[in-house]
């Protein structure tokens, strides 16, 4: 009658993890580095997420921001917007949190191998994309060109400034940055992220675009990709939805028949355009 035997373990039980480093990266954003208390590796793919618990407050889905090539610990970059994220921001080093996951499909790194990649990051879209960027940099010879287009609202809201500087200096990374609104000190590009596109020359036959940003960004970036001749199957995006369970049970993350926590959060535009209410 029941198609599966009763499982041994609860899918709702988090692993315990210790907070080992905190680094502020912008006004409301910090990076948190964790180590699982049982000494195991998290074992994630770039683009996957965890359910982070602050016991007594609740759980929130947060993308892995570190690359799986970094062993022994993992990083989450988090914007303080509500209950769980605020409680996390108030923790001190040594604190214990709960971690379930990694969940979701992640970026299709195997398909990206040998290809040129243009990464388009809007705001905190850089949090999950940083995992992919550092993964590619650690396995640099396995990938083609790496172009990064990163947009922030203001110069103060640029995330991971140190890392951006490092990427700027590398010969094998083409990084273009922009801010929506500059200030006196900002000498770089001003305009939304799509305005960088005229400065980029690509070979549409061998490029993948990987796009993560606020919901409003996707339509504009897709239009730019189309102008450059990138087909829908090679435009990759990660979608945000409300999530409670992370494992295909609670229904909160559903877009049409799709559970974003299961079949996503990473989709090709070819998949996304078949969904109503997706972007």
């Amino acid at each position, binding site marked *: 009658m*029941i*198609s599966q035997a009763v499982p041994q*373990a609860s899918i709702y*039980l988090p692993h315990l993890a210790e907070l080992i480093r905190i680094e502020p990266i912008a006004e409301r954003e910090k990076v948190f580095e964790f180590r699982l208390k049982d000494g195991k590796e998290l074992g994630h793919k770039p683009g996957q997420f965890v359910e982070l618990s602050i*016991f007594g407050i609740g759980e929130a889905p947060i993308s892995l921001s570190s690359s799986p090539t970094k062993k022994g610990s993992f990083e989450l970059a988090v914007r303080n917007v509500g209950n769980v*994220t605020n409680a996390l921001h108030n923790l001190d080093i040594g604190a214990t949190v709960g971690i379930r996951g990694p969940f979701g499909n992640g970026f299709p790194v195997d398909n990206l191998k040998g290809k040129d990649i243009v990464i388009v990051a809007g705001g905190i879209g850089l949090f999950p994309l940083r995992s992919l960027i550092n993964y590619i940099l650690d396995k640099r010879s396995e990938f083609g060109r790496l172009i990064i287009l990163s947009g922030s609202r203001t110069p103060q809201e640029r995330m991971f400034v140190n890392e951006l500087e490092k990427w700027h200096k590398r010969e094998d990374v083409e990084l273009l940055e922009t801010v929506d609104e500059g200030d006196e000190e900002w000498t770089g590009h001003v305009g939304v992220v799509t305005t960088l596109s005229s400065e980029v020359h690509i070979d549409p036959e061998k490029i993948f675009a990987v796009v993560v940003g606020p919901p409003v960004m996707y339509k504009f970036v897709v239009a730019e990709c189309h102008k450059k001749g990138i087909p829908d199957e090679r435009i990759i995006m990660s979608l945000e939805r409300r999530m409670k369970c992370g494992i295909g049970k609670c*229904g*909160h993350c559903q877009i*049409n028949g799709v559970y974003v926590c299961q079949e996503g959060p990473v989709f090709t535009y070819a998949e996304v355009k078949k969904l109503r209410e997706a972007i």
Partner: protein
Amino acid sequence: MENKIIEKQNMAPFVDNLINAEAEVIGPKRKDGKYAFDKLIETGELCLDYDTTLLPPKMYLFPPKETLIKFELGKEPEVEPVVEAKPLILFGVHPYDIKAIELLDVAFSTTNPDINYLSKREKAVIIGVDCLNPNPNAFCPSLGTATAETGFDLMLTDIGDSYVVAIGSSKGEQLLTKYAETREASQVELAQRNSERQKALARYKVTLNISPEELPQLLDKSWDSPWWKEKSEKCLSCGSCIVVCPTCFCFDVQDDVTLNLKEGERYRQWDGCMLVDFAAVAGGGNFRGDKESRFRHRMYRKGKYIWERYGKLGCVGCGRCASACLAEIASPAETFNRLKEESK
């Protein structure tokens, strides 16, 4: 399937034996002029000729509120899973509710098996009873849920002076052998069961003008119908339709801490897509912020999404939602029939 007979005068002793000897027995009882599943203290409370219950029996397998983990707070927090499951007999479950439980079995065991549901389910015995007195909003025959061939341990049918008992599992058979006085069912009695079921079919007032297999296709064509906006305008976003539904299984998860802040628990509670915040995210976004999209989403789950994902219908036609909805808009039958009209 093997069939036995329990004479009506032998039914009370059977139920009493179950209550006294076996496990907690849950059955439909009268409540404020309606019916509700509740723990049976004595056989007399059991109403086997009810039309439908306010809440479905799923509440004993997937409770309205259920603890998932417990934790101790402090410098070194400790967590443990909480899985509460005790032997339970669900007595007098209608076929549509049995079909709904079969859907929950699939939903909770697929991909990431859910120990909280499956442990309760494993310990539950289901004794069904055919619904011969359907409620006016039900449309089970149109969905093939008026009778059930699987999903029960025993299935009773009232044929006048006695019940025919179909045996659905060895567990069910053991309970009969141990606690009930039965005899073999004759061909005449089995024919009587058929005729009772046939007569019941004629008592349903609502019919779906489309076969369930065609629903996904119909909905594929109906996304842009004016119906969604028109009909949903009256919606109060009260969530009654999802609370009473036997096939709804979405939930919210929350933490609670004790007053001394030393320990707490994480629990889940029923939640559903007709409530305003169901798809709201941080930063003020809401992916289904208007009534129209929530109303449509629920109907698509009932007629298409669940079917495509789990191979079972997302609606069993019990009619509870239609009875519960003050705005009189919640019945999937009305919506599906209307869309069928539009598609002609």
